[in-house]
Every structure is written in C-alpha cells, then in structure tokens.
C-alpha cells in the first residue's frame, strides 16, 4: 500500500523495462526504498537508526560468515582457533574485532531505535504489528549475541553460558532437566559449544526474515513522524529517494566513523579481560558480568535478593528479567493516549526522560559488582522500571492534557497549511 500520490515506476532504460516486465524487482525496490515511497517530510535524525540497524546486521552476517571459515567449534581448540584468527589469518584480527564491536554497535543502534519508539509512541495503532515484530527481533538479537559471546570459549564465555542457562534451572519442577537439555550435559562443554555455534549461525538469518516482516508491516501505514500527526496530503511527504537515502548515507558515515574508531583504536574497550583467559570449569572469575548490552536486564535479575511470599528470589529474578522485555509487547495497549509524539505530551515526556536515566542507572549497576550500594540502587531502579510501563503509563495517558497538535505535518514544518481551515486544529482528546 502506499499513498495515492506516490510516484509510479516508469523505467526509460529498455533493459530495466525488459527486466521489470518479467520480474518486477526494480519496481519493488523503487516502491520500497526509492522515489516511489512517500515518507513524512519532517523525519529527524532519530529516524536514521532503523536503516543503521539493518546495516549492522549485514555487517555481522558478512564478518561472521568469514570468521566461521576459520573458527573451530570444539571445546578443545575453540580458544586457540580464535587466537589463530587473531595472529595468522590474513586480516583475521580486523575481522574478529569488527565482529565483536559490530555486536556492540548493533545494540547501540537498536537501543536508540527502541527509545525513539518509546518517545514518539511509534507502537500505537496502526503500527502495533511493526512494534511487536521489533520486540521479537530484539529477543532474537539477545539470544544470538549471548551465544556468540560463548564461542571464544574464554572464562567469561564459559561462566556466561553456565549462569544464563542456570536461569532456566529456576523454573519449578522442570528447571534442572531443562538446563541439562539446553547444555547437553551437566555443565557447558563440547555439546553446548557446538549447538551454540550452530544456532549463532542460524539466528541472524531468522532475524533477517523477521526484519523483512518488520519493514513490510512498516510499509502498510508508512513511517510515523516527530509530530505523530498522520500524513494527510501530498505536501506532507517527500519521496524516500533522494531525500532519505542521502540523509541515511550521512548517518551511515557517522556510524562507520564511530565503529572504526572502536575497531582500530579501542577494540577491547567494551570487552572483558577475563575472556582472554581460556575457559576453566574449576575457577570462576572474581567478577562475572555479561556484555554491556545486557547490563540493565542483569541488574533487574540480581535485584531480587529475598524470597517473596512463596516464590524463591532466584525465580523472581528470572521472571522479572524476562518480564522486563515482555512488557514491551503490551505497550500499545498500556499507553492509551490518542496523542503519539512526546513533543505534545508534557507529563509523559518527564516520565520518559526519567525512564532513560533509570535504564542508564540499571545498566551501570548491572555492570558493577554485586555489592552495596549497587544492589539497593538497582532495586529502586527496577521498581521504577516496572511501575513506569505498567502503572505510570496507563495513568499518565488518561490524566494528561496534551498540548495542541499541528493540523498537519506541512503546518508543523512551514508554520502554515492552506488546508488547515478545513478541519479543526486538534483532534478530540479522549
């Protein structure tokens, strides 16, 4: 679907006409990311991150496939094979650092993309399906990243695998058999390493598939925009190409500069020294933490230190950690305000910024050792996290009085819109 004023693909080149008549792929591209896709004219730089996330996935797949040509998924030689890549394979050091830091960049970009969604309420009707698919992508990314971190078979790999699969042992009755089934043994070893490698190779392609659905769903209503006012007329939009291809090209340049600065000048900044020690099942590192992108969730996991009613603390932590992401699935129905954009919602905006700070605090505590005051801070911060999504958002959306919305995107951009007199300036607020 597209807006009625979308440009139609009319190839002048006879070759393109020939192809288009037999396989309308050029037409498909033109309508998806070309001049045939009208996009709100007021998108800001926050709308660059979807394309960047797609780029990061391709980057990870390309470097990952290449690394898999040299990596050996066997507990006896995995660590040495990674060092072989770092020392002997042509450009192996660069490819491995590119893959490891590429994961971090992917998460930086995706977190920005998600928080963009929070602020502009991109999850609201008619875009719920885009949002739900996005949460699925995020869950798949977390699983993929976790399994990838196990592959070098260093100390953090091993103990990460042990601790994360240990989460499943908290489930009553089936927990321990489930953990052993996941690992194919009583502790992480060859069986676990091999299946993690297999799945780490598979899941990115599953992610790619879900991304296709995510973008497909996006093309039904079209992109949301900073005002949250739906596209009404042709003057509200510009064609994706060249307006946003050029803007995305610039964004990509910035992304690549940050990424290359990491790869070439601080490749181990976001890693952990202990993962350069080969896995040792008999000795746990003094301070085990997951990769930085899991820290907020890790803090929530660790915040539950006391049994609550009849539920053991361990199970509470696991439930809460998974709920912290699952709650995103319900967001379209928790936030019922008819206004989308945080720009026009003063109260919502304050709580949004509080959430950003809260997640940063959770992240900091998740990376810190499990001792006071970090545990107590993460308890408070976790409390806010759940209250924000499940209690505050529903209340705010019913009590808040939004500021007046512009009549249209055109009016928001140009300050006037000759159609504006034909309709009331703000939609009725429920």
């Amino acid at each position, binding site marked *: 679907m597209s807006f009625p004023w979308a440009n139609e693909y009319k190839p002048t080149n006879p070759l393109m006409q020939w192809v288009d008549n037999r396989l309308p792929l050029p037409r498909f591209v033109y309508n998806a990311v070309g001049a045939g896709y009208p996009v709100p004219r007021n998108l800001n730089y926050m709308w660059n991150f979807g394309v960047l996330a797609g780029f990061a996935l391709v980057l990870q797949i*390309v470097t990952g496939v290449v690394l898999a*040509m*040299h990596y050996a998924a066997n507990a006896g030689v995995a660590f040495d094979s990674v060092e072989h890549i770092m*020392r*002997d*394979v*042509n*450009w192996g050091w*660069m*490819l491995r650092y590119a893959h490891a830091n590429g994961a971090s960049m992917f998460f930086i970009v995706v977190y920005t993309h998600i928080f963009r969604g929070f602020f502009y309420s991109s999850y609201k009707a008619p875009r719920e399906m885009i949002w739900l698919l996005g949460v699925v992508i995020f869950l798949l990314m977390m699983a993929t990243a976790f399994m990838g971190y196990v592959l070098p078979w260093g100390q953090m790999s091993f103990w990460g695998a042990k601790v994360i699969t240990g989460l499943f042992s908290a489930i009553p009755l089936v927990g321990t058999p489930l953990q052993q089934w996941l690992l194919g043994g009583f502790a992480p070893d060859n069986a676990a390493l091999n299946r993690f490698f297999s799945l780490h190779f598979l899941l990115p392609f599953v992610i790619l598939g879900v991304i296709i659905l995510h973008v497909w769903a996006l093309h039904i209503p079209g992109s949301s925009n900073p005002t949250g006012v739906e596209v009404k007329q042709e003057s509200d939009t510009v064609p994706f190409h060249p307006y946003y291809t050029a803007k995305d090209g610039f964004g990509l340049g910035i992304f690549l500069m940050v990424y290359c600065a990491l790869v070439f000048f601080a490749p181990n900044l976001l890693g952990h020294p202990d993962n350069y020690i080969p896995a040792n099942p008999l000795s746990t590192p003094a301070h085990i933490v997951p990769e930085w992108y899991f820290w907020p969730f890790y803090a929530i996991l660790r915040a539950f230190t006391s049994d609550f009613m009849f539920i053991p603390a361990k199970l509470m932590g696991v439930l809460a950690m998974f709920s912290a992401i699952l709650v995103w699935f319900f967001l379209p129905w928790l936030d019922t305000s008819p206004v989308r954009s945080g720009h026009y919602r003063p109260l919502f905006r304050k709580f949004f910024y509080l959430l950003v700070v809260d997640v940063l605090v959770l992240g900091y505590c998740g990376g810190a050792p499990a001792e006071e005051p970090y545990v107590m801070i993460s308890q408070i911060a976790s409390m806010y996290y759940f209250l924000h999504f499940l209690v505050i958002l529903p209340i705010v959306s019913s009590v808040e009085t939004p500021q007046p919305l512009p009549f249209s995107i055109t009016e928001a951009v140009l300050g006037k819109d000759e159609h504006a007199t034909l309709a009331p300036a703000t939609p009725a607020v429920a």
Partner: protein
Amino acid sequence: MAGDGVRRRDFINIAAVSFAGVGGLAALYPLISQMAPSADVLAESSTEIDISAISPGQAIKAVWRKQPVFIRNLTPEEIKAADAVDVSTLRDPETLEKRTTAGKTNWLITMGVCTHLGCVPLGAGEGEVKGEFGGYFCPCHGSVYDTAARIRKGPAPKNLEVPPHEFSSDTVVKIG
C-alpha cells in the same frame, strides 16, 4: 550562476557515490584475502626424511605441505630403462638425470600428485600396480608414468613434479 550551481551539485553527488563505491570495494579486500593461506600454513617448514631403510626397488610415501611425496630407490635396471627412452618422444621431455641429484640418480623424489587432476598415483606402496612402464599408475583417469615418473600415457600433461630437495647426509633428505 545557476549553471555553476548545478555543476557543483552534480560534482558532489558523483563524488559521494564514488567514495561509497571505493569504500565498499576496499572493504572487500580483507574479506577476500582472509581465504588465502594463513601465516602458519605458509610457515610450514621443510621436512626431513630418513631414507636409510629404503632398499633398491622400494619406495615410500612421505608428507610435505600436506601432500604425498614419493621417495623411490631405483634399481640399476630401472635407471637403465629410464635412460633408454628417447627424450624427444616424451610429452614432457626430461631426462632422469635432470630429475635427480647428481651422484644420487637412484633416488627419485617426486610429488605423489598426478598432474592431471591431483589424485595419488599407485606404485609407491608395497604390492601396488606400477603400470605398464614400471613407474606409477593413476587409477582415477589412467595416467601411466615410467620409472623416472615421466608421463607416458593417459590424460596427465606433465611429469610428476620434483619438489625442491637436498641430501643433508647419505641417509637423510630434506624436502622444501
């Protein structure tokens, strides 16, 4: 003035797209070059082989650069047979003398890799078929080599390759 503006515009657009193209191509280089032999493979050093136990008429298979090498102690009859051939009639004209070390012409050292498509020819192992010219016989496509491991019949274009080698002593040969 307007014309200049358009020209500057086009220039920037072309330059930006070219930069993207050059960058993309440059990024391909490490992705391609990573498949070339790595430093440890290239460093695969020479192999020393003890040949004291090989009596005339016998041969052994050794390994060099992960490929078989045939080391054969030729009998005087085999040497005579090899020398009797008119070199100019051969597909890949080489004398036995040229293929062995001076003074040690009885030691024929060749790669055990058929020059046709890379199979390992028979004839070096105990009891293996040596082919009608008494050297080696490749079972894959029927290439036949003579006692100097020269191609005589079948599809292979070249004689079995002689790897670089030298005798460290009378009983030890160093290949590579």
